């Protein structure tokens, strides 16, 4: 059966972990990237993700089609995004605070409506085997990926293109960099921000569906361990660059797989510290790449969090 790989198991596990664990981070951070480019920050994506996980699982269970669940999760996420956007468009309403409020509300509603969904088994999303070329079973399994990951990669590349090369990207950046300039040019600021936040919600909803319908593939109240919040941090870490979001999500996912992988090859003490590795790593990179003198490169200047 499986051959003994010795220490090679660790890099393979980290690779597998990257591909399995990173998708929710990728989706939330890409969505948040667009939202933040427009000058708003939505910390409520954690709640949206949890609600998306519930809605996705429920949708898949009720229709028998996991993709219908993904769609439902996306729609639910969009609604949460619209709610955030609408509330923040009122004068004097702080976007960070609304985000925290929606985090509580989203999780609360998800747990409230999700009770009857804990027990039933919903159809799961299928995986794609990219490792057929290898005869190492561990590698084949590590390369078993969700189509959602590939879709996420495509979205990342597409967003980069949109930001750099298209008029939509230009408007988005302008609204996020200077509301006054955008207003002077006649661009509709509030509609742009509402659309950008709705997109962020949509992506977070899908991220939730990935958790409940692919990996780990279950709905319960502990399904998220803060993926939605951390992904918001990853956007800053990634300097608002969609490709860097992909990289950040992969690094974070891989670092998360390090703890179990090290234990499986016999490095057994201090596992709490290994489990904290992704957070330490993120903080260390933020520290290394920040400077008090220049503003963050790529930061939308209207963004409250970088002001």
């Amino acid at each position, binding site marked *: 059966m*499986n051959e003994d790989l010795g220490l090679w198991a660790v890099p*393979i596990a980290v690779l597998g*972990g990257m591909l399995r664990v990173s998708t929710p981070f990728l989706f939330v951070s890409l969505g948040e990237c667009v939202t933040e480019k427009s000058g708003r920050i939505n910390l409520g994506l954690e709640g949206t993700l949890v609600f998306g996980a519930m809605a996705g699982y429920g949708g898949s269970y009720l229709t028998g089609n996991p993709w219908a669940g993904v769609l439902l999760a996306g729609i639910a996420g969009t609604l949460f995004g619209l709610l955030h956007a609408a509330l923040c468009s009122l004068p004097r309403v702080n976007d960070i605070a609304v985000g925290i409020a929606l985090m509580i509300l989203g999780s609360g509603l998800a747990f409230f409506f999700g009770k009857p969904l*804990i027990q039933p088994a919903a159809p799961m999303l299928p995986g794609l085997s990219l490792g057929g070329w290898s005869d190492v079973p561990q590698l084949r399994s590590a390369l078993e990926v969700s189509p959602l990951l590939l879709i996420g990669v495509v979205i990342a590349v597409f967003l980069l293109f949109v930001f750099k090369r298209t008029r939509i990207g230009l408007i988005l950046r302008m609204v996020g960099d200077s509301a006054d300039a955008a207003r002077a040019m006649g661009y509709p600021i509030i509609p742009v921000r509402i659309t950008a936040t709705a997109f962020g919600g949509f992506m977070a909803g899908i991220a939730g569906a990935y958790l409940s319908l692919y990996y780990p593939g279950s709905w319960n109240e502990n399904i998220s*361990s803060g993926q939605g919040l951390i992904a918001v941090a990853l956007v800053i870490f990634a300097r608002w660059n969609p490709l860097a979001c992909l990289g950040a999500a992969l690094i974070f996912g891989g670092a998360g797989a390090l703890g179990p992988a090290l234990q499986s090859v016999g490095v057994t003490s201090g*596992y709490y510290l290994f489990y904290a590795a992704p957070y330490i790593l993120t903080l260390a990179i933020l520290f290394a790449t920040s400077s008090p003198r220049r503003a963050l490169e790529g930061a939308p200047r209207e963004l409250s969090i970088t002001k």
Partner: protein
Amino acid sequence: MLPMNRRRFLATTAALSAAPLLGRVSPAFAASLTAGFVYVGPRDDYGYNQSHAEGAAAIRDMAGLTIIEEENVAESDAVVKTMESMIQLDGAGLIFPTSFGYYNPFVVDTAKAYEDVQFRHCGGLWTDKDPKNAGSYFGYIGTAQYICGIIAGHMTKSKRLGFVAAKPIPQVLLNINAYTLGARSVDPEITTQVIFTGDWAMPVKEAEAVNALVDQGADVLTCHVDSPKVFVQTAAGRGAYVTGYHTSQAPLAPEKYLTGAEWHWATVYKMFAEKALAGEELPNFVRGGLAEDFVKISDYGPAVTEEAKKQADAVKAEVMKGGFAVIKGPLKDNKGNDVVAAGNEYPETAIELESMDYLVEGVIGSTS
């Protein structure tokens, strides 16, 4: 009916005969009783909390008994307030706080403050220094894990088992050791690889741990976390066999589910409720295993071979007679130290097992 450690039993009866009849479960009140159940997590988690909720459901229709339940109660003063609220606002006379971390100081202190209410805690180690209106109950599930280990030992081809566990606490270590010893009674070359996730409900880490174990060649896995749902589904998805824990997870993986160690709390709750309704004293220290129907073994799955069933059933029959010891000398831990000398044995009732702090030879992992 309820086997107790003899020393403890004597102490208990002595204490009880000295004490006056206890308020709310005295005959005058016994015609009706409100019993409160407190759970640390959601009561439909396919795991630990569900096993207790099923026990509570089994006595719901008992005449004269009202059941009240509260879930997701943290192991802090929140549980004190929940218990007090059940007493003060709902008139509860018997309370079952079901999570280990509730016991000291929270259950002990509340029991001191409400002398006429009975508290029976799951997993704690009641001693005669604790309040007389408190007590603890638990099941000897380690022996059930030993039998699951026998099945696993027959079914593994790679001679490697995997164990996903939350924290290296005595209850968990006993399960890991019993499982390993069961498997090694089939083939002494078998090893068990343990991964600790650090907490009781960490779905993503549990799934990652399963993947890491399967990558290392484990082909039969089990776990000790609060909700084994993700564990079972992920392991079965990777093509490994699983043995379950807490409740039966067979519906989640009908082909790959071999068997499992399950709680059967209905036995305990029925006993307490009947005694309380009849106005009898409630025992303070209650333990039971397979023979007492406190724990049970899931029905064997379709993949289990006849040979495996035969040996497991034979050991089970032996266990039912009483006095069976999983932990017996000579026994080394996985660092090479002798932990049990030859000739010594600890049957499941031995109190020493409740403070286990080592992993036996054949387990890959460490206790800290």
